[in-house]
């Protein structure tokens, strides 16, 4: 199959959605002639013109409001937060309006919009441009939260998100944009709310999100040489969470490690860990479920500190090995 990058996969998803459905439009900062800060929308202005590829002033609340208002009146907007951090300025529109409107109106409104957010650290952009805030939105009824970890998933999940009749927070990762992978040319969807076993293994279930999926796979390769076989599961959708495959896997392996980039304290790992505990997998646990996640620190500018602020392959290897070998 054809190999393209995560970024190209997203762009193709946007293009095909727009070709298919003229209710879809894009709105955000510098998404037109600039092509988006990370290039995702490059070329789309030429194809669709400024009425459907809408460059905005620097007004994040306005961007989110545009998505809320346009979606509730029949359009299917895709908004962009240039860096996911900037969503702090759009929380009211997303959380108080977009997420709740349908419910507050007695189920009588539909809000089919997507907010794409470029998240994550690793580019030297320091504390205000490197956050991983997905768990905030997992905590908000009315939203769905999606986080693709491969080019294939990026396209398929984006197409689903745009077809979805609810607000979707779509977290991309800056370091994944250049990742290459097999992506079909035709349109295809990956159901929202379905996780994926990206690697089978018998010794430890690793539940990883976003960039931690490729890192976990690398770790798995390394450990495999030592005879340790990780089973790696990517939830892909964080809300609603597809619990069953995780539970089943933990029943099989008896051990689980959750890996994410976001700060550990108050993060999504707690949700997964608690969910496993509350499930029938509890009785099969040979060791406590552990979390490997970002340190409780704003992302530092210094390259070395930045590197060590979030889990890297070697940390996953080490942590997984410890759990499997019961050396806690």
């Amino acid at each position: 199959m054809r190999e393209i990058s995560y970024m190209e996969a997203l762009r193709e998803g946007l293009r095909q959605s727009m070709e298919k459905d003229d209710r879809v439009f894009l709105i955000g900062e510098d998404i037109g002639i600039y092509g988006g800060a990370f290039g995702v929308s490059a070329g789309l202005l030429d194809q669709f013109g400024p009425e459907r590829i809408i460059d905005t002033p620097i007004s994040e609340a306005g961007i989110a409001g545009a998505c809320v208002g346009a979606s509730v009146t029949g359009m299917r907007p895709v908004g962009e937060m240039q860096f996911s951090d900037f969503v702090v300025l759009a929380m009211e529109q997303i959380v108080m309006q977009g997420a709740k409107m349908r419910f507050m109106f007695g189920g009588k409104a539909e809000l089919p919009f997507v907010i794409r957010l470029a998240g994550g650290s690793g580019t030297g952009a320091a504390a205000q441009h490197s956050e991983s805030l997905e768990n905030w939105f997992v905590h908000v009824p009315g939203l769905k939260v999606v986080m693709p970890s491969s080019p294939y998933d990026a396209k398929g999940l984006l197409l689903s998100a745009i077809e979805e009749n609810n607000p979707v927070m779509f977290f991309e990762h800056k370091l994944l944009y250049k990742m290459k992978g097999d992506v079909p040319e035709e349109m295809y969807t990956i159901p929202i709310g379905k996780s994926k076993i990206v690697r089978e293994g018998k010794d430890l279930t690793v539940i990883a999100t976003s960039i931690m999926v490729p890192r976990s796979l690398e770790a798995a390769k390394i450990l495999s040489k030592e005879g340790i076989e990780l089973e790696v599961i990517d939830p892909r959708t964080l809300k609603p969470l597809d619990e069953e495959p995780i539970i089943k896997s933990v029943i099989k392996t008896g051990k689980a490690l959750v890996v994410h980039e976001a700060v550990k304290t108050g993060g999504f790992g707690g949700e997964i860990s608690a969910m496993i505990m509350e499930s029938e997998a509890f009785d099969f646990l040979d060791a406590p479920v552990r979390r490997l996640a970002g340190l409780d620190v704003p992302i530092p500018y210094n390259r070395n500190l930045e590197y060590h602020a979030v889990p890297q392959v070697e940390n996953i290897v080490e942590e997984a090995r410890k759990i499997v070998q019961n050396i806690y």
Partner: protein
Amino acid sequence: MAEGKKEQQLIGGEIERSKAEDLLYKMVLTRTFEENALEMFALGKVHGTMHVSIGQEAIAAGAGPALKEGDYLLNTHRGHGHFLMWGGDLNLMMSEFLGKENGYCRGRGGSMHIADVESNNLGAQGIVAGNLPISVGVGLSIKIRKTKQVVLTLFGDGAANEGAFHESLNMASIWNLPVIYLCENNQYAMSMAFERAFRIEQISDRASAYGIKGLTVDGNDVIAVHQAVREAADRAREGQGSTLIEAITYRYQGHSKSDRQLYRTRDEVKKWMKKDPIPRFAKLLDIDEEGFNKIEEKAKVDIKNAVDFAENSPEPELSTIMEGIYA
């Protein structure tokens, strides 16, 4: 024929007589509804909070009817009048207010979120200025769909100091969106007097910061509001973009049920009561005391019936609590 023509005489050059009479009735109905609501609160019959617009009824009476079917409404927390003027059904509104299953929002929204999406009434608002960014989206949607609809976005003086106001008006301006920004300046945001929160004479002066048209009208004058909104709608439909209208008015009651009103004098309230929009509009319509009493009676009966209707309506089933969150 001559008589027919007389019937269609335009009150104040703006509103057909029959429509105007209906508006007067709805102004009285709004006030009766709200007075009744205050009583129900006092009796503990309803919970939560609510914000009444007593004294401000002319804005709703002038604004909603200046628009056409298919236009959109983005309402505020003080929006019962606008809801009724938009054609809201009193019974279903009362049901919502009492949290009943047959209310507009199945009892989930209440006074602060009441909406009727079917009639393009996109709801009241619990977040001050929360509807302003939304109006950008509605405006864009109209522009892309090329439907010649317009959006009426309501907000208070207090809302004009939220960041959302700024972003919204600028975006509507640069994209020439068909949004009518109607600011109900009732002199206070809760306890914050207009003069303390602004260092300008008129909120409409802010229009120039965005390059759109701005004007201030007497918000207790149904005709003035109607004219301003109608003209703004005309301009918007012709592709001439947004307008910021400031309607000067006054709230007689406290901000919400728990307001002791220490921030103003009784005299100030009395002064404004002399400019009451309801008798003023009745006078314009040449309606005498007897005629007015009849209107009041009818409103009372309608409210009583609505209360009966709502009280006899079913509560939502607990088993449905998780419904209506996701499509």
